[in-house]
């Protein structure tokens, strides 16, 4: 059976008139990297909360259907049990700092300390995690004296250090610089290859196409489309429903109307765009992808 299994999940927040999630059916295999896309209010964060146990345990409200992760059912578990398997990085990184610690190092170690990980192991796990997100030089800084992107890196690192079996990331790179974003995507990809299951909400289509295994497109609380990134992210259905797209996709779509894009499929990544537009420009000689910058796919 799938590692994550949502069956007919419908959920409504207290005091609201319409469900935020409607009849969601979603299966994710262990080690799979699934990206969730959708416009504002689609239910992306609510889906993250449902996977992480906050819906319904923390937010209350009315839920039907079943949510299973690692063979356990959410409604039959407590939040304390649930978070042992599932880690969530919140959409707003600014209020994820615990407030209990004086240095970034201690902040990241906080969760491990709580579950009683021995000092030596804790130290090496924190150092490894900080290396993954590029914040080793922040170790001795106060968690309150950081830039926006640095705070987001600390918040992400304190989830990664726990090595949850299911990693749920709600727009984890929203405050990050462009090359840092690409590097974090690469890190998450590697963790999925090592067996961690990842569900990630993002708007950055170019990197989703390059790094994720599958895309789920949400709108108005329902799954509109799901499948391979290259197919979902270029579909007309998404374009018609107010979903964003990479500039490669939108420009090729316009070029196609003018007869300047000759391939059947639209591109999402740079390599796909270069390949397709090279057909329009028979005399140009596309330059090779720069090496070692993670631009050439998985």
């Amino acid at each position, binding site marked *: 059976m799938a590692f994550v299994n949502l069956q007919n999940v419908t959920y409504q927040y207290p005091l609201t008139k319409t469900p935020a999630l409607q009849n969601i059916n979603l299966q994710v295999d262990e080690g799979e990297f699934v990206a969730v896309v959708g416009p504002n209010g689609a239910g992306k964060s609510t889906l993250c909360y449902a996977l992480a146990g906050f819906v319904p345990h923390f937010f209350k409200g009315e839920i039907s259907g079943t949510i299973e992760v690692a063979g356990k059912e959410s409604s039959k578990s407590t939040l304390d049990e649930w978070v042992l398997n599932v880690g969530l990085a919140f959409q707003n990184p600014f209020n994820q700092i615990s407030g209990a610690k004086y240095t970034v190092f201690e902040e990241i170690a906080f969760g491990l300390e709580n579950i009683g990980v021995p000092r030596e192991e804790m130290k090496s796990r924190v150092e490894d995690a900080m290396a993954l997100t590029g914040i080793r030089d922040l170790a001795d800084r106060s968690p309150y004296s950081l830039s926006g992107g640095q705070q987001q890196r600390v918040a992400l690192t304190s989830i990664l250090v726990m090595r949850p079996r299911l990693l749920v990331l709600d727009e984890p790179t929203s405050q990050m610089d462009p090359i840092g974003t690409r590097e974090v995507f690469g890190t998450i990809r590697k963790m999925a290859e090592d067996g961690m299951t990842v569900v990630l909400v993002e708007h950055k289509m170019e990197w989703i196409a390059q790094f994720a295994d599958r895309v789920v497109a949400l709108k108005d609380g329902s799954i509109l489309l799901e499948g391979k990134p290259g197919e979902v992210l270029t579909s007309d259905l998404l374009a018609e429903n107010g979903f964003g797209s990479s500039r490669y996709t939108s*420009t090729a779509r316009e070029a196609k109307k003018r007869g300047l894009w000759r391939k059947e499929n639209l591109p999402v990544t740079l390599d796909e765009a270069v390949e397709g*537009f090279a057909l329009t420009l028979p005399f140009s000689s596309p330059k090779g992808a720069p090496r070692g910058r993670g631009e050439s796919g998985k």
Partner: protein
Amino acid sequence: MKIEIKDLRFTFPTGLEALKGISLTIEAGEQVAIVGQNGAGKTTLVRHFNGLLQPASGSVMIGDWDVKKYSVAKLATRVGYVFQNPDEQLFSRDVLTEVTFGPKNLGYAKEKIDELVQRALSLTELNDKTETNPYDLSPTWRKMVALASIIAMDTPIVIFDEPTTGQDALNVARIANAISELRMEGKTVITITHDIDFCAENFDRVIALSNGQVLLDGPAREILGQDEVLAQTYVDPPQLTRLGKRLGLKETVRNQEEFLKAIT
């Protein structure tokens, strides 16, 4: 209104030197994007424009005002700043009160306040949310409220810190539209952004900061093509600029229009 920065240096109480000698002139009515890696000093720089931070040395002039000699309240008549984290900015119990607070505080006449508030709400598509408590909104809509409440103040200089973060395509288009409205009114718009495609499509001038210093400053077309220098501050060129380069186009292209023209 002109902004003139001369050899600005700033060190936080922790001892960290965040700005290491910045000199810049931004003319009245310019549209400027500031880019650069996390921790480069972007937010620290603009917080000097409205008095939230005070220069350790060097100077910042807003028009004929030296920021050292004016209070935050006074500077608010000239500079509006939308915080990177909207939660540091919002405090009212409903959206309408929040957006009305700024212009009211600046002492405008009632009719002008109503007009400014109405326009700010329309630009940010908040008309149906005026009675909502900002804290019941998602972080993305809270950011739209933060934008509206600064736009409503009608200051000659407007600063946005990461406005498009987490926004969907519709809201990004609304923000771009708001910026172009402000441009037409002759306002100076300074936007900090990691969204380089948005930067390429909406700004004439780009300043790249790195490690507390200006790394690059010039017309967007010149700056955004310099992939190797930009990489020093962890910035990639825009998608279509990268594509143009890989296809061997002679000119640096920044947006769809330029790209399609170049391949036609």
